[in-house]
């Protein structure tokens, strides 16, 4: 197992290199650069030229790329052009908020989708089944910002029970922390829940048709134990897979949710960085996301070995 993990960790490196080339090229294809954007409608052409030269933005692209990569390898992510502070510091400052959001969104998603998938799979064709299908459709099709705004309207403006804006750390006040986390994580969780429910339900339906389930039922075991103890365990592999893949979706979706809810996370930071063409921040942040995503996928693969004893890694 250890050997497998080490091998996987090593493959992350060439993947990151490839990702870095893609990230760098995509950002530099966009017209505009941080200096021009900084001056906006008050350009002082001499200062612009001077600063572009100072930052090296007038050098050929491949020179800028290798310069950046060389710095990354030495652990220097550079300074944000806009904020002036070190990028690693900015990322570390904002990452916790996004991580809380993603973790709670996943909790919401799983706590909603697993019961629904079990219920709808065990009652095919019934009203519950149709209701579950509707839930899946809404989750897959609803735009994230729309759902977010709807929830704000209901819970903040009409019912006045939950705040719609900002972040309070868990160290400061647990009730406030949970209150502020509620709406954004529910929005993101419901959206992701649609996809997870779909996969979980179809797997569940298949598992419930298996021979060993008939055998357990014939032993006279209660339906609840059949579903939650025997059937559910066998649906875990696709669920774990989809949850691992959905992390990427969550990282991307959190950008919109963070904007809607004023959540001070990485997504909002990256969005601002793209608007202001803060090259170093975008590159550093996206590379960080890539590495995070790859680590989550590695964790997913390792989890398989615990979920399904038949899977062995060399």
């Amino acid at each position, binding site marked *: 197992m250890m050997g497998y993990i080490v091998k996987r960790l090593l493959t992350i490196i060439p993947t990151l290199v490839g990702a870095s080339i893609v990230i760098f090229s995509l950002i530099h294809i*966009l017209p505009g650069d941080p200096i*021009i954007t900084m001056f906006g*409608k008050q350009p*002082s052409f001499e200062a612009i030229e*001077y600063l572009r030269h100072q930052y090296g933005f007038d050098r050929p692209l491949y020179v800028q790329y290798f310069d950046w990569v060389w710095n990354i390898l030495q652990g220097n992510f550079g300074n944000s052009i806009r904020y*002036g502070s070190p990028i690693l510091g900015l990322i570390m400052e904002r990452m916790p908020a996004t991580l809380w959001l993603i973790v709670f969104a996943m909790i919401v998603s799983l706590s909603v989708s697993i019961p629904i998938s079990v219920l709808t799979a065990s009652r095919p064709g019934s009203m519950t089944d149709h209701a579950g299908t509707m839930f899946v459709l809404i989750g897959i099709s609803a735009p994230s910002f729309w759902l977010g705004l709807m929830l704000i309207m209901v819970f903040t403006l009409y019912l006045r029970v939950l705040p719609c804006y900002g972040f309070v750390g868990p160290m400061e006040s647990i009730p406030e922390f949970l209150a502020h986390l509620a709406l954004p994580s529910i929005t993101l969780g419901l959206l992701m829940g649609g996809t997870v429910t779909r996969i979980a339900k179809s797997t569940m339906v298949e598992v419930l048709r298996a021979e060993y389930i008939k055998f357990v039922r014939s032993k006279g075991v209660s339906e609840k134990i059949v579903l939650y103890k025997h059937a559910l365990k066998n649906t875990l592999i696709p669920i774990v897979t989809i949850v691992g893949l959905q992390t990427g979706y969550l990282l991307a979706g959190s950008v919109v949710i963070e904007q809607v809810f*004023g959540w*001070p996370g990485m997504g*909002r930071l990256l969005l601002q960085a793209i608007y202001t063409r803060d090259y170093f921040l975008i590159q550093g942040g996206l590379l960080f996301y890539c590495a995070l995503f790859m680590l989550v996928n590695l964790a997913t693969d390792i989890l398989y070995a615990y979920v399904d004893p038949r899977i062995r890694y060399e």
Partner: protein
Amino acid sequence: MAESRTVVQTRRKYLKYIGSAAAGVVVGALGTYGAIYRPPPPPVVAPRPLERYGGILKVVVDGEAPELDPQVSTLFIAQWVEEEMFEGLVKFGLDMTIAPALAWRWQRIDPKTFEFYLRDNVKFHNGRKMTSADVKYSFERIKDPATGSPQNHFFQATIDSIDTPDDYTVRLNLKAPTASLLGYLGTWGPPFAIVCKENVEAGESKTKPIGTGPFKFKEWVKGDHITLTGFKDYWDPGLPYADELRFDFQGESSVMVSMLKARTVDQASPIFPTDIPAVDTSEVTNKVQPISGYHWICVNTKVKPYDDVRVRQAIAHAIDKTEVTQLVWYGLARPIDSPLMYFEPCYSPVKAPEYDPQKAKELLAEAGYPDGFSDTLTAVPITEDTKVATVAAAQLERVGIRLKIETPELSTYVKIAIIDKTFHVAQCGNTDPPEPDYILSKFYETGGSLNMANYSNPEVDGLFKQAREEYDDVKRTDLYRRIQEIVLPDAPYVWLENPPRIYAWWRDLQGYTPHSDLSQCFSTVWSPKLEGR
């Protein structure tokens, strides 16, 4: 024996000499003293009533400042925070004339030399006294291109050297007479702020700034809010009233209105015209404040067919500015013929080509486009700007000019429309300090920083140079009038409307006055109902 006559005469002669010498010394001393003696700054206003003090004043602005260095910022959302922490030498008063700030008096020694006399009780937020050396440092920082100040060009072109004859006197030696100097220095922001050398050298000027203003920086929770605390050693004793000032960031006007009504904040701006009824209640009031902002449509005179003046004039005649103000601003904006507003110095009414669609069609036919033509309109991707562009494009379509509207993202827009000028027709908007040279020359002078139309007229350039060196306001006003009378018939720009800025606040707030140059001085604002009281 009595003294002989000669002795007495000699004594008298010596007495006369000594007397005149003494008189000369006394007169000389008094004269020199009079020349160098300057009366001290006038005493500041007596302390205010105790009931005004205390509380946390909370306001919301429509975005998060990217940095808090006033010499570098170009966005209002940053400047609204910076204006509470920083000051310049002078500022614009409510009546739009230059008023003292850190300099309590100034004079023009000769056409190329200005002297500013600084207050002697100004401290930075770190406790150190501000002197003329700080002014010199701050101005040289603006002049240094490495700082990245948008005012760099102005200082490079204007300031020759800066002297500091003593701790509280600054002398600016200019390269040429510059009538616009005070107007630039008084700009809201303030972009010509006096900054703290230690703060800049520690690399914290963008994130933990230190200034001389009534509020000092406390914390910046990125993505959430910025909090400032009252500066107890502010040079105007008794100010500010509030203990703390907090800026929240929220981009949506409707969410801002909800925050205001729920009293999550005490004041909010800018508010959309459609939200005015929601902020006109027994608890909350609002003001529709005229500001020096405007929108325009311009063409790229280097691109066919816009090099033909008839096509440009046709475009100008096709636009109905009143319709723009009705449709986009619900009648709250004013149609304009110039970016120089009636409440700004050196204003004179000028006439741009009038709305006359028939004439527009005739001119197009004359120019060889009887059926009009198609092209692209590049507009700024902000709601109001896009609305203005849509209305203008619809009006142009009535005369046959079919424009497809494109709203690239802001950085791309800046590159296309302002830096590279690869657009054909563009819509844009801007807001200015009330300084006529700044307002007009950036559009009409060859190489002007916002001369998107690539307009170039040597006669106009000459008049600008003349106006810059003319200290007499009457003559200056006349020169700017002549400039506009030459440019307007040429129609490189069509000036559309002057929208107001709408501010809303709780009625119990006292001392809050929005200003036409966009400043909102929160140091004089107080209320018994602020949080924490």
